[in-house]
């Protein structure tokens, strides 16, 4: 078996955030994410980051799990942090190998980093505290277009199947003596194997579609789900959303 990087691995834990109604959770955290991403001053973005960390702590998700997810996304943020100080016009701080570092550049780099990190961190309490199929159903209830919900659902269902298919194929390739090297031959073999996976996937999609039509699928799709919005859900959503609004109000006044 593959070790799948499952985002909902710790959905079984129990915390205030885990108990939060999935629909309210998505709306409230999405609002907060957009609100923090829209901040334009470093100190407020810093407050946003602290708030994000606070929610992460509140969700009781293991730190190692959180860091593993944040680590990968950070790889995309770091380049901005490095490039910005050198590329923005403004007050010079120092020169490194003839490249001017500006105050404005550093500030903007820090701002982007803070905003992006906050967003990435907030995704965890939003998504990782609910079983993924619940999240999908919540999206459906929130009237996200059916086609998107279905795409997400099938991706989630079949990514493991394709993963295993690839693993089986790779095992067959390796057991016939193939070793991955940086030769043209090795790359060509890899390419062909991937091509095979596409063909297999295409054929499977046809069989799945037949199975769906056999059970009356016409393109629309509904699922049954029991969501129960409690008073505490409303209070928590209100708090999170107000936080997003207040950050902007204070920034506007100051």
């Amino acid at each position, binding site marked *: 078996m593959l070790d799948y990087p499952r985002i909902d691995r710790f959905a079984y834990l129990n915390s205030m955030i885990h108990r939060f109604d999935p629909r309210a959770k998505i709306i409230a955290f999405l609002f907060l994410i957009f609100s923090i991403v829209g901040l334009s001053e470093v100190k407020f973005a810093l407050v946003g980051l602290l708030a994000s960390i606070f929610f992460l702590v509140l969700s009781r998700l293991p730190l190692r799990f959180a860091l593993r997810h944040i680590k990968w996304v950070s790889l995309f943020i770091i380049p901005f942090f490095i490039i910005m100080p050198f590329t923005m016009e403004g007050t010079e701080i120092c020169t490194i190998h003839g490249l001017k570092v500006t105050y404005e550049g550093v500030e903007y780099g820090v701002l982007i980093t803070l905003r992006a990190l906050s967003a990435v961190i907030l995704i965890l309490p939003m998504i990782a505290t609910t079983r993924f199929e619940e999240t999908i159903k919540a999206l459906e209830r929130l009237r996200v277009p059916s086609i998107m919900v279905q795409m997400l659902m099938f991706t989630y269902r079949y990514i493991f*199947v394709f993963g295993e298919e690839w693993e089986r194929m790779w095992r067959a390739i390796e057991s016939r003596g193939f070793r991955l090297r940086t030769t043209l031959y090795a790359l060509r073999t890899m390419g062909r194997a991937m091509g095979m996976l596409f063909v297999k996937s295409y054929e499977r999609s046809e069989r799945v579609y037949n199975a769906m039509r056999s059970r009356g699928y016409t393109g629309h*799709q509904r699922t049954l789900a029991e969501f129960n919005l409690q008073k505490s859900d409303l209070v928590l959503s209100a708090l999170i959303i107000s936080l997003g609004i207040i950050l902007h109000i204070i920034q506007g006044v100051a």
Partner: protein
Amino acid sequence: MREAVTTRNLNYSYPDGTIALNNINITIQEGERVAIVGPNGAGKTTFLLHLNGILQNTDGEVKIFGKNVNEAEREDIIKNVGVVFQDPDDQLFMPTIFDDVAFGPMNLELNENEVRRRVKNSLTRLGLTGYDERCSHHLSYGEKKRASLAAVISMEPRILVLDEPTANLDPKSRAELIKIINELNRDGVTIIITTHDINAVPELVDRVYVLNRTIIAEGIIREIFSDAKLLKENHLEVPEVFKLFEVLKCFGYNCEELPLSINEAIENLTKTIGTNGGHIHLHIHEHTHEETEKVKHKYRYDHH
């Protein structure tokens, strides 16, 4: 009794022009148990896909309870004909087992209570109580297979079509599945299966169609199994018990009807021993060697 499935002059060619089905005429009565057997690539799955209108075809006619599949309301056909495909990973496409089993009833636009009732019934029937929130990906193959059957019987079809139901199952899962299919049949559901599992044929069906692009033969199991030439031409086989009793005959055992299963064998032996004063007599006579060689030859595929 009504005719559950009728096909008349059904022809089908793949997009590349290869003939898959040629002039298929089949009549299956309500409540019957029928197997469609034949070599790999004989068009068995293709034929099944015609039964609920997944493959629509104007060259010929498929009728379900007298209604033409191409002309009837799609929902009408779907409701009556449930198809269980071979690979459960194709059949279970929803996030949880509950959603999968509810998928069909939801599409029939039943109300929520009815959907929940049917899901519960189907899961109980298949021994999957408590599996509601499980992801199909984490189930064993046997469990997946049962779940895919649950997902179809929740639509309460009158005709159940199963493509290779016993393939890849361990003996326990296989036996359980056969039992469930037969229970459904006792409730009046018409059963149509394709299979290579020749030992399952006597347990699962009463009548057999041999399909190899076209219908080669049709009959009750014993008739089909007794035609060695037919079997060989269509890459088929008979159950080991059947062969064993043919061998016993070479040693002088007196047997009119060769048994198809262990149960029939016990019955047969009991009867024969009973009528022979409490014992049977086997011996080697002058033709025994010749006759056993003939039996061996009859079922061999590894030489010509």
